């Protein structure tokens, strides 16, 4: 028995680069050999789906992009899934960004969904107002008068010349807000300065690490459901019936989680042995 304990203790002191190699393979291999495990929707994802389904015909939806390349794998599948869902139900989409990188993410998503898949016309079915610096002050400015902040859209056209912008003067004119957010500024600012003061319903999709900061507001009804990280994106893709990049990553996510749980358990076994040993001597 002691020989096994010695082996475990020695394994506990192994160079951390072996651990890097193991987790690297645990993520890489499932990308080449997908397992296709079934995906089950959780309560919070279902709430987002129901909130979008509840919108009547061609409602005006404000979709805000607050993420960048570093958090794209988690949030981009949500943005694409949501755009598909909104355009299938025939809604009008208005895009704003509180992060500069959000504009590139928005263009990429809209090119893929609005232009290539649904071939909609810019300015009549969707419009990109683009990025403005100022964090929560931008949201506050939009709530009171959006036309003072956005006199032109992201393509330089004057806002008054865009047909879709007719009748839009402030956030209260929208029927629904969705914030695809990876941090600050993001969902919290949209709830505090737009949704709570005006009563416009809001849903969100965030990176995994931010979900817990928003969960109390999902419970209190201030936020209508939340897409939580890549699993949330995969569940939403399953609900709208179009599996995309979110789903393909899930096998790698499953295996990697199992490996990390085994690391924690194994690490604690070595810890127990060390504690028992130190008690004896």
């Amino acid at each position, binding site marked *: 028995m002691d020989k096994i304990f010695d082996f475990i203790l020695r394994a506990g002191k192994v160079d951390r680069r072996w651990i890097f190699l193991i*987790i690297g393979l645990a993520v890489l291999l499932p990308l080449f050999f997908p397992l296709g495990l079934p995906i089950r929707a959780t309560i919070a994802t279902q709430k987002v789906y129901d909130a979008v389904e509840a919108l009547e015909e061609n409602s005006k939806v404000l979709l805000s992009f607050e993420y960048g390349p570093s*958090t794209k794998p988690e949030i981009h599948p949500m943005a694409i899934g949501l755009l598909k869902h909104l355009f299938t139900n025939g809604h009008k989409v208005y895009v704003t960004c509180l992060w500069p*990188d959000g504009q590139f993410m928005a263009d990429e998503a809209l090119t893929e969904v609005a232009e290539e898949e649904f071939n909609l016309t810019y300015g009549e079915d969707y419009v990109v107002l683009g990025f403005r610096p100022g964090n929560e002050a931008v949201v506050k400015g939009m709530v009171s008068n959006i036309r*003072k902040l956005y006199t032109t859209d992201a*393509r330089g056209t004057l806002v008054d010349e865009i047909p879709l912008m007719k009748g839009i003067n402030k956030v209260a004119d929208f029927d629904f807000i969705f914030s695809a957010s990876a941090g600050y500024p993001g969902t919290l600012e949209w709830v505090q300065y737009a949704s709570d003061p005006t009563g416009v319903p809001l849903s969100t999709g965030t990176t995994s690490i931010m979900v817990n900061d928003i*969960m109390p507001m999902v419970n209190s009804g201030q936020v209508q459901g939340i897409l939580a990280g890549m699993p949330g994106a995969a569940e939403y893709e399953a609900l709208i019936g179009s599996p995309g990049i979110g789903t393909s990553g899930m096998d790698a996510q499953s295996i990697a989680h199992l490996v*990390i749980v085994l690391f924690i358990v194994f690490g604690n076994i070595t810890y127990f042995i060390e504690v028992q040993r130190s008690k004896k001597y």
Partner: protein
Amino acid sequence: MLWKRQIPILLATIVGLSTLFGWFIDHPGIESFVNDDATQWYDILASFAIFLGALNLMKLQGKKVLKQQSGWQYSLFAIGGFLFAIVAGFVYKGNDAVEWGIHVTSKGTLFKWMFEYMFTPLSATMFALLAFFVASASYRAFRVRNLEATLLLVSGIIIMVGRVPLGSSISSWFIMYLLVLISSIAVNIKFKDKKITFGALFVGVLIVTVWGSALGWPLDQPGIFYLPVLQDWIYNNPNVAGARAIMIGIGLGIFATSIRYIIGVEKSYIGE
């Protein structure tokens, strides 16, 4: 002292009070100034703060190069990277069909090329490094050293496994047998008597098997031992309670700090 100290504190108080009262004033003229123009000024100053950051960076890296401090060769890359971004932003558009100002976001420009092939890989990979650090920390640092850390790790593991597709293929029976095994180990550590341990193990296995066959061994019954359902319960209830207590605590903390800024008691922003 008037210019360096009194005026900034007075300015912060005036702007703070006007913004705070701006929430309550019902007068179109005042409201439009406080909510539109004042926020536009904030956005303008936020932009100038970024330019100040850029100047400070160049000053720091430039000094490092001129004084040839250690690692100055790398500072050349920092300055080179900055100048390349400035050229793409202000000097060379790369796609003349696009107007200045719109070129930072439209296709085919040098700026978009820099975003896609330089900024994206650098910032995305920097974050992806963390997956490796989490893995090595899970193995070498995360210990159940006290009851609090145990609760944290157990709920963390249940949520991690329960939320991924793999979790829904682990049957509740497997979890029940696992619990019986763990509790018998605990019994062994406590009583240190082989007979009691095997007795507890045998009784546990017996109960689980009888209960299982009575229910017909469904994968996800009883719910409390089926990871996805257990994970959803933990996540939507005790977790929300803890997160709500933290949210209220932080909310009050930020309210108190904001009020201290407005009444001029908190002066850390001018280095005091």
